[in-house]
């Protein structure tokens, strides 16, 4: 029975792996010695003179630690769905050495004491927690939070995720103020009037299903607004969970005009479409909803040409009582931390010829750049934050083996190719 706890070490030798790291231009077989939380040596190392813990990494690939910049950890307030501890363990199991938690907890993360609570709850865990704080107090869309102090205390971005910042004047102020304190606003783009209380994408599939539907433009009109505010103010904005072709097109045009917009999408949009909703299986219900094949192709093209910077899971744990319902009554969201990497490797590397370096940009380097979390480089004297991949591993998703407290995944039983084999961070190592 494999342990679900990481092991602390003083010195660690990762022997025989292949190191791939675009920041140090490395793609070669190399051993790594880690001293506490620092890389002491990278190269060919004689194991006989080493007295610490040795892990045989033959056949494995070592890359800079992955970071998921959009997860919901539910604590405080809904600990029956997820806690900081269970969520960070799920992240570790999924190959992440860092996550950014969204502030739509109960209460919202909008004050120094809430940031302090998260810092305490995440202390000593293998996976780092970088909190994102709310844009507005209580996520009510009225008054700005104390962004300066929150940023100083560790908030790496600001978002009212779960809801958009609807008021355009307030959004302008939020972007300007956040930029002043060196952070960006992360917007959940959704026009609620266009979304109309819908439950799935508006398309032929919703015409079949008879469910209230959310048109793709409910997302894209807000993306266009954010781009315009960003252009006008010169301040950065990050678009969360992009799901539509129109949004990709708007962001691509904005980047061509050097507007400071960045964007993320999620693994489920890359492999599922709204056709799945015809089953009324509530594990296909999330917001934004699964879109059409045309949107899916646009997202993959957007990832390929750099329009979309980041893949994040939008990990959204829910209890069975919120999901085992008729579709329109069920909660939005699916867990993703423990399937994200496997899906990305299988789909983007396996089916769309992405390189591992591109995956590292999308899941490690870019999320860190956008949130101003220090970059990871596999070099001597740098921070040891490492993800160890088994690219040849064939495995089947088994939600019963998740470390998350919730199992609301549409991917249970899905066969994947490649995944996380281990992670190293904070004096700790976890291998399968």
């Amino acid at each position: 029975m494999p342990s679900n706890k990481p092991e602390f070490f003083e010195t660690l030798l990762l022997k025989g792996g292949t190191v791939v790291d675009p920041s140090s231009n490395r793609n070669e077989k190399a051993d790594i010695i880690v001293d506490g939380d620092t890389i002491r040596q990278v190269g060919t190392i004689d194991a006989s003179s080493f007295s610490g813990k040795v892990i045989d990494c033959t056949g494995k690939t070592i890359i800079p630690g992955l970071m998921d910049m959009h997860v919901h950890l539910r604590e405080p307030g809904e600990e029956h769905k997820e806690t900081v501890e269970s969520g960070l363990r799920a992240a570790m199991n999924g190959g992440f050495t860092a996550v950014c938690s969204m502030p739509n907890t109960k209460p919202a993360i909008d004050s120094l004491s809430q940031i302090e609570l998260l810092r305490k709850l995440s202390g000593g865990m293998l996976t780092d927690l970088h909190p994102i704080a709310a844009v507005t107090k209580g996520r009510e869309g009225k008054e700005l939070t104390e962004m300066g102090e929150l940023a100083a205390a560790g908030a790496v971005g600001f978002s009212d995720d779960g809801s958009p910042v609807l008021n355009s004047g307030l959004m302008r102020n939020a972007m300007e103020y956040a930029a002043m304190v060196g952070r960006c606003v992360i917007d959940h783009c959704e026009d609620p009037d266009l979304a109309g209380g819908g439950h799935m994408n508006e398309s032929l599939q919703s015409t079949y299903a008879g469910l209230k539907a959310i048109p793709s433009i409910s997302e894209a009109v807000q993306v266009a607004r954010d781009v315009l505010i960003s252009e006008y103010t010169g301040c950065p904005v990050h678009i969360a969970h992009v799901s539509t072709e129109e949004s990709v097109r708007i962001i691509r045009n904005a980047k061509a005009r050097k507007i400071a917009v960045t964007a993320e999408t999620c693994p489920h949009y890359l492999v599922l479409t709204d056709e799945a909703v015809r089953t009324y299986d509530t594990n296909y219900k999330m917001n934004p909803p699964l879109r059409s094949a045309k949107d899916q192709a646009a997202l993959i093209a957007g990832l390929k040409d750099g329009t979309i910077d980041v893949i994040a899971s939008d990990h959204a744990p829910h209890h069975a009582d919120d999901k085992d319902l008729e579709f329109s009554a069920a909660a939005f969201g699916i867990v993703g931390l423990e399937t994200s990497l496997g899906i990305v490797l299988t789909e983007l590397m396996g089916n769309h010829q992405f390189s591992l370096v591109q995956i590292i940009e999308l899941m490690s380097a870019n999320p860190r750049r956008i949130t101003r979390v220090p970059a990871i480089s596999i070099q001597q004297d740098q921070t040891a934050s490492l993800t160890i991949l088994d690219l040849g591993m064939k495995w089947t998703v088994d939600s019963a083996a998740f470390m998350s407290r919730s199992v609301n995944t549409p991917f249970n039983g899905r066969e994947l190719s490649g995944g996380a084999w281990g992670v190293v961070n904070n004096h700790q190592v976890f291998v399968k």
Partner: protein
Amino acid sequence: MKITLTHLLGLEGVSKQDITTILDTADTFKNVLKRPIPKVPTMKGKTIVNLFFEPSTRTRFSFELAEKRLSADTVNFSASSSSVLKGETLKDTIKNIEAMRIDFVVMRHGAPGSAKYLSECVNASVINAGDGAHEHPTQGLLDMMTIREKVGRIEGLNVTIIGDIKHSRVARSNIHGLISMGAHVGVCGPATLLPRDIRELGVTVYPSLEDALADSDVINVLRIQLERQKGGQFPSLREYRTLFGITGERLQHAKKGITVLHPGPMNRGVEIDSDVADGNASVILDQVTNGLAVRMAVLYLLAGGRSKMEGDSNAQ
């Protein structure tokens, strides 16, 4: 006669063969209903629960009467959706049904897909009596029975559904059933009340009512809900009547011999005028009679399918 279904959740995907069997069986039951004692012992000992989460006088009355005419034991459950949270009610109710020995559940519920959800949770045969804007299969069947009875066939006919297609389960069941039976289906209504990509279902969209009426052998006029106007989806009942109301005057320019259906209840003077509803082209009262016969046929045939299945499992 047998059908391949164990539940009737919708008409999407139901074969021409099964629909024809149901309509033929319904014709037989219609003759039974003309007897001095219009009752058969076919479903003696079978227990049926009628679960209505939304108010419905007509459909519920029709099902109850069909069940009584077949000598089944019936239990009625109705929940006012305001008293309890909708999601909780369905789940909790299903748990109660599971604990009883029930052969059939007839359910109306506001959530699309709720009938399928129910069918996955219980052992009984489920008949969808309307699940939100998704389907209302017995209405589609009774409409087809009525068309076949009046015109003599369904195949090759131009049948146009008029009104709020977007929010209508009647429209969806009609579209799926009629296409399966070989009819040409059209829709006509305010642009705001047509669902996305409706043409991809294989239907013709008529921008003007005049064109629709000129082409159609049959029209099925849907009830317009005032709440759609409050939701900003059309300006007024007055304008709705002006643009889409079926009046006697308009019908004079329609295709010769046109047949008019309406699933009821009607807003007389809005989507349909009394001189049409009560006139020669109307088969609206036949729809009510046929609804009873169709529901008897569906229950009878699903019971047949089930007893066959039970026989199979005993044989192993």
